[in-house]
């Protein structure tokens, strides 16, 4: 312990042990890496290997490699491009991965993931203890397992574990995360069998006990870890109660597992387990209970616990032994090193957007809103390398796109100045944070990160400076490159022929706190911006009616978050008029026409417009002949969202 942060977070950075292996600290990289980067045949690709190299060097004491499916048919395969471990032919690739992890001084654990109810992705069915139909259309219709099949699956897990150890891994982990096969046996929701594998908790746990025995016999000298739910959040519909979950953990402990990774939730549960709306530390009590009940078994936990300082305290207070981190390390693979070096203010935060998982469930490779490099580690074009020719770069706009570009370009040695017309950085992200009902502090932490990095890297940010043609003339020939990251604006012009158009108010002005609306508000546009503002106004006591031209609201919201907005709209009692458009505005309110051509009047003191949006293209035209290189990024190119802004900003930064 000789780095300054290690002394401060001494519980996190103390050495530990698992089985016969020593760990350099108490951090476990949680299997957060089902990536969809691999071959359809289960072989690992160079893209995956490059990603795993980054994972290996995160500084964690234990690294869990992504869940591999153990059966040749692919009944256990949950994702199109998931890694397989059902045959010796895969061993060389696992050897490479184990090598990366050992080179980085970590203990290497291979996860075995049989997806059960969520498997059979290439097949027309999935297998389960009982035929319990799906509640999510993404998954396959179920078939019931015979006892012979159960025995075969247990043997496949043991073979997979043996293979992982032969490949050089130190131990294995079997996951039941969010409703995979192991959870299907354990849970009353999916296990309706009447033989010795179903019924009582004792019987439902039989599959798990056989699995643990088989894996331990196959790999007697290697630690075996298991991921088990402490709460399924499915109790109302017949899932396990919390007590049953802990009884099952007890069985695993009695079978001699070396570590329990405590998880929460079920993919079909009606409530979030680790979305943006769950506050950090929310589920800690479950891991504390596991620690209390099973003092002799190592407990790993980290579900929605992104902060190393909190984790350090939890270890001190006996909430868990190992901090199991997943998404925070996707957003910033340097997190542990920054914590060790007492540079936590430089951490690029995970904002819980769940872009990563949204993409997996759309059969796409995972990416991260906050980390544009994730998934592109294999491409040299994404690496930050010293610029051959150092340039003087002006960035117009201090929103996410501009700041991301500025930081990246500066790291490459360019000289960067950011010009921002408002009095602060953050752009529309600041307005988003000011109105967000989920976790505004997470969004604000992104802006804080940009501020810290700009300071640290010596990026000059000139606030209250609007870039326009006159301004450009004043700085002519002082810059080699101009990057327009001026965002998008509300297109009030789209309503110019509407009666009463002069009464319309730009919703962004309200979002930024520059205008206060009246008590009764009509919000034109029910996309992410209109809804966020409508929700925040309603919470503050306004009466809001949302008018949306499309058939549904939330059309541009991230798939995993749409439900959250529609639930808020319901809970807050926000009236929505869909398939409707504005036809007239007066000082009394708005007249709206629906798809059938029927007009209705909505009384309102203020009519706000959040849609359509228009990219700020004007500057491109104005500056075209004034600077050597002219580029654009983020909403200034096409009005989209945070992901595109951050990713494009970064890509410009590494390219210029």
């Amino acid at each position, binding site marked *: 312990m000789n780095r300054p942060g290690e002394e401060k977070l001494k519980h996190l950075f103390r050495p530990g042990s698992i089985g016969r292996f020593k760990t350099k600290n108490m951090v476990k990289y949680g299997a957060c890496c089902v990536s969809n980067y691999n071959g359809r045949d289960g072989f690992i690709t160079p893209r995956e290997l490059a990603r795993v190299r980054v994972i290996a060097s995160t500084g964690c004491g234990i690294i869990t490699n992504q869940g591999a499916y153990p059966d040749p048919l692919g009944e256990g395969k949950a994702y199109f491009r998931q890694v397989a471990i059902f045959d010796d032919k895969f061993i060389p690739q696992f050897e490479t991965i184990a090598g990366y992890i050992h080179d980085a001084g970590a203990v290497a654990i291979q996860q075995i993931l049989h997806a059960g109810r969520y498997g059979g992705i290439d097949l027309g069915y999935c297998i389960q203890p009982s*035929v*319990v139909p799906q509640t*999510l259309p*993404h998954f396959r219709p179920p078939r019931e397992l015979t006892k012979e099949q159960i025995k075969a699956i247990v043997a496949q897990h043991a073979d997979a574990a043996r293979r992982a150890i032969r490949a050089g891994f130190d131990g294995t982990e079997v996951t039941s995360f*969010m409703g995979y096969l192991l959870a299907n046996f354990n849970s009353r929701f999916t296990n309706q069998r009447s033989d010795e594998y179903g019924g009582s908790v004792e019987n439902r746990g039989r599959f798990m006990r056989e699995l643990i025995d088989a894996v331990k016999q196959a790999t007697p000298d290697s630690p075996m870890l298991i991921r088990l739910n402490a709460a399924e959040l499915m109790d109302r519909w017949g899932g396990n109660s919390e007590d049953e979950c802990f009884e099952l953990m007890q069985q695993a402990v009695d079978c001699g597992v070396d570590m329990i990774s405590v998880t929460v939730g079920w*993919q079909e549960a009606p409530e979030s387990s680790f*979305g943006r709306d769950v506050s950090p530390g929310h589920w800690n009590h479950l891991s504390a209970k596991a620690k209390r009940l099973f003092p002799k078994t190592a407990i790993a936990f980290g579900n929605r616990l992104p902060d190393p300082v909190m984790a350090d305290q939890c270890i001190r207070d006996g909430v868990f032994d190992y901090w199991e981190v997943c998404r925070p390390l996707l957003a910033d693979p340097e997190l542990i090193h920054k914590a060790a070096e007492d540079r936590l203010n430089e951490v690029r935060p995970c904002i819980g957007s769940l872009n990563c998982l949204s993409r997996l469930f759309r059969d796409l490779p995972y990416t991260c809103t906050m980390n544009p490099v994730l998934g592109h580690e294999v491409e040299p074009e994404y690496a930050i390398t010293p610029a051959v020719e150092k340039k003087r770069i002006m960035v117009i706009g201090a929103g996410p796109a501009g700041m991301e570009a500025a930081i990246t370009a500066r790291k490459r040695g360019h000289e960067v100045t950011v010009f921002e017309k408002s009095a602060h950085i953050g752009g529309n992200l600041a307005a988003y944070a000011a109105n967000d009902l989920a976790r505004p502090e997470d969004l604000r932490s992104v802006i804080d990160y940009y501020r810290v990095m700009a300071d640290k890297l010596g990026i000059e940010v000139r606030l209250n400076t609007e870039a326009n043609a006159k301004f450009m003339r004043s700085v002519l020939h002082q810059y080699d490159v101009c990057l327009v990251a001026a965002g998008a604006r509300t297109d009030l012009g789209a309503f110019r022929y509407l009666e009463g158009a002069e009464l319309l108010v730009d919703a962004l002005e309200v979002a930024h706190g520059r205008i206060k609306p009246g008590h009764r508000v009509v919000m034109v546009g029910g996309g992410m911006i209109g809804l966020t503002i409508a929700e925040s106004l309603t919470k503050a006591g306004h009466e809001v009616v949302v008018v949306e031209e499309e058939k549904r609201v939330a059309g541009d919201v991230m798939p995993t978050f749409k439900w959250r907005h529609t*639930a808020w709209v319901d809970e807050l009692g926000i009236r929505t008029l869909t398939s409707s458009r504005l036809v007239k505005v007066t000082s009394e309110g708005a007249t709206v026409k629906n798809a059938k051509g029927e007009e209705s009047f909505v009384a309102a003191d203020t009519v706000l417009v959040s849609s359509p949006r228009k990219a700020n293209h004007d500057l491109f035209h104005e500056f075209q002949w004034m600077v050597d290189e002219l580029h654009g990024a983020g909403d200034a190119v096409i009005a989209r969202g945070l992901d595109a802004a951050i990713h494009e900003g970064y890509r410009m930064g590494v390219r210029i």
Partner: protein
Amino acid sequence: MANAFGDLSAWQAMLDRHAELFSEMSAGSRVGFVSRSESGVTPGKHVAGLMAAKGAGDMMAWERRETGMQTSLEDYAGFQDARVDLLFVAEDEALAAMREALSGEALGMIKRLIRKGGIMFYVMKNKYQLQDAGYEEFLESLGLSFLGACR
């Protein structure tokens, strides 16, 4: 009240009012509603126990015919025999709330009840089959496709 769903003509009127949600559906597409208590599932057992509860109750079916979505009452003999694409299993209070809301925002009510866990729903077809059968609009209106995995 003869059955858990009450007056079917009120349901029919509600479906007629929302005809546009079903306009893209192919003929023969079917949705079923069963009441959890009428289905004979014993307390403590969850809805998958419906399998064992042969012929214990009624199912309200909504079937897409030439003229639109039609309601009817059928014997319920387990989900495997129900010939439905989606099956909704509702708690008694949820059913009562739905009946109350039939003349107003019934679909909004169903959506809320699904979120709160008062109605459980099962899909007998996968996403692509449902899309091909024209379910997208209806599912979206109930917020079902929003209930994506892992939250």
